[in-house]
């Protein structure tokens, strides 16, 4: 085998591993939300691929030492995607998968919205939209003061981007030249009351972030290779924070959830539907 062939083989293996992890995260999401029969499934499924790339490859973390100093951190600013984060954490071994089925049950460690004091591996409490990105900016400033070389990742919702605080955070991140801050927008074009375009359009999103001083990428949010390559490029960027716009489909991977359109923000899931959903996810060929 030539060097090039070796490299190609390695990269194919990485792709397969990341796709497999994304698949596992989606199955976990179904188990997690299915256990209580209702939840924010749409916006969880739309970020499964980026979570697979972050937890599967890029984040400097150690599941057996979740509070590791100088670790990379992820703030899920769209806090209602908690079940997606839990699904990734369980896949990485932060806690037992059986725990996923305690979602939203009284006394659970897995509440609908992310809570750093309840869930091992969750880096910030979120749920009141707009605040998480500011928290991530605070962490990125903290990392710069400590000079520990860590990266702070944040995922914001497209609907969440209607919050003024997102743009306050953006302005400060660029002003402070936080090139250790990598932000993703889950651009699935849907919010509770309708499409983003119907309710309060955020377009042109790339130009907005660019004008706010970010280096902007816009990619297919379900293409693990594209996400992987873009994060790698982002890490080489200096003096500017990064915005990676993930063009996504709300409910991605389960056809009846995708088909529910704006209705999939939070929707009921019966036991039969869960079985169907998992079959569909697992039927996706990994190539």
């Amino acid at each position, binding site marked *: 085998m030539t060097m090039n062939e070796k490299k190609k083989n390695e990269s194919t293996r990485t792709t397969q591993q990341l796709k497999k992890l994304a698949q596992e995260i989606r199955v976990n999401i179904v188990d997690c939300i299915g256990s209580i029969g209702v939840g924010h499934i749409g916006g969880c499924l739309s970020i499964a691929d980026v979570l697979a790339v972050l937890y599967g490859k890029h984040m400097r973390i150690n599941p057996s030492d979740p509070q590791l100093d100088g670790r990379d951190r992820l*703030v899920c600013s769209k806090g209602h995607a908690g079940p997606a984060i839990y699904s990734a954490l369980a896949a990485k071994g932060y806690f037992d998968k059986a725990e996923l089925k305690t979602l939203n049950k009284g006394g659970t460690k897995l509440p609908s919205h992310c*809570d*750093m*004091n309840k869930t091992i591996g969750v*880096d*910030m*409490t979120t*749920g*009141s939209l*707009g*605040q*998480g990105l*500011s*928290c*991530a*900016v*605070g*962490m*990125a*400033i*903290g*990392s*710069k*003061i*400590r000079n520990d070389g860590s990266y702070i990742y944040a995922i914001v919702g497209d609907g969440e981007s209607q919050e*003024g*605080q997102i743009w*306050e*955070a953006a*302005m*400060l991140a660029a*002003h402070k030249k936080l090139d250790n801050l990598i932000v993703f927008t889950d651009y699935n074009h849907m919010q509770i009351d309708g499409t983003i375009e119907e309710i309060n359009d955020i377009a042109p999103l790339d130009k907005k972030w660019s004008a706010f001083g970010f280096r902007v990428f816009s990619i297919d949010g379900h293409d693990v290779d594209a996400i992987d390559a873009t994060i790698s490029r982002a890490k080489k960027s200096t003096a500017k924070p990064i915005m990676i716009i993930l063009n996504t489909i709300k409910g991605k991977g389960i056809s009846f959830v995708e088909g529910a359109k704006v209705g999939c923000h939070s929707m009921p899931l019966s036991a039969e539907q869960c079985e169907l959903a998992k079959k569909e996810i697992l039927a996706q060929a990994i190539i």
Partner: protein
Amino acid sequence: MKYQMLKDMLMRDIYVDFIREQIKSGDKVVALEADLAKCSGMIALQKEFPDRVINTGIAEQNMASVAAGLAAYGFIPFIHSFGPFVTRRICDQIMISICYAKQNVKIIGSDPGITAELNGGTHMPFEDIGVLRSIPDILIYEPTDNVEFKKILPQILAHVGPVYVRMYRKVPPSVYDENKDETFNLFKAKVIREGSDVTIIASGIMVAESLEAAKMLEAINISAEVIASPIIKPLDTETIIKSLKKTKAAVTAENHNVCGGLRSAVSEVIVENYPVPLRCVGVKEKFGEVGKQAYLKTAFSLNAIDIMSAAKEVLTNK
């Protein structure tokens, strides 16, 4: 350099000196400002320690959540703005990013109540205590004077959890003698004058007014006990109830709306523990307005004479 008596210092300088000491001696404290570093005096430190003093510009919501992120990273952030902008304006950020997330952030709100003077109604917080008092875990502290504030600041830092401080910026009325070795406990109220007929419970600039009222009452043979209650949440129930068991009548005095502030806190404690008649001095369901302190004290009935009247009145209900 000539030594400056504490009582002659601007209260803000005590705050800034404390932060300077912490930045120099440790790696945890950071200070955040939202374009009022000139007003707090923090501007000098911002130039001295650009990494540790972070100015977010006029974006208080962002400042609060950025501070929470810094706290999650292991820092102890102190955030400052004028009282209303660091409380009611960012109530949800305080609630979620800071308190619910259990982040160790200290909140400094300057110019409490009528001390906002010429900035007027928009900048004059009469509701900040009320807004924050229903949030679990947060401490609410209003310094009595410079001597106390200087000794309490290290305790605020040592306390793990959010603390809101209603900080006067200028030279406050002096209550304690700095040459006496007075000790203070963040969680305790203090009997600063003993009496037997009525207990006056006061905070902030109203403590000095209460002492003056007690003297006036003495002249008409009414013996007033005065309690300085800088800690409004959690209220020092023990000290207050102990005094009321002796005097059996209460007057509260505060530079805040009586609805939601010290009067409310004291009433709750009295009703549950030892019901006695109570009258209050404070802002009574009014918005702020512009003016110098002397005018505002009269406009909102916050003078010693108002405390005296309330004490006389409450005695008739005993």
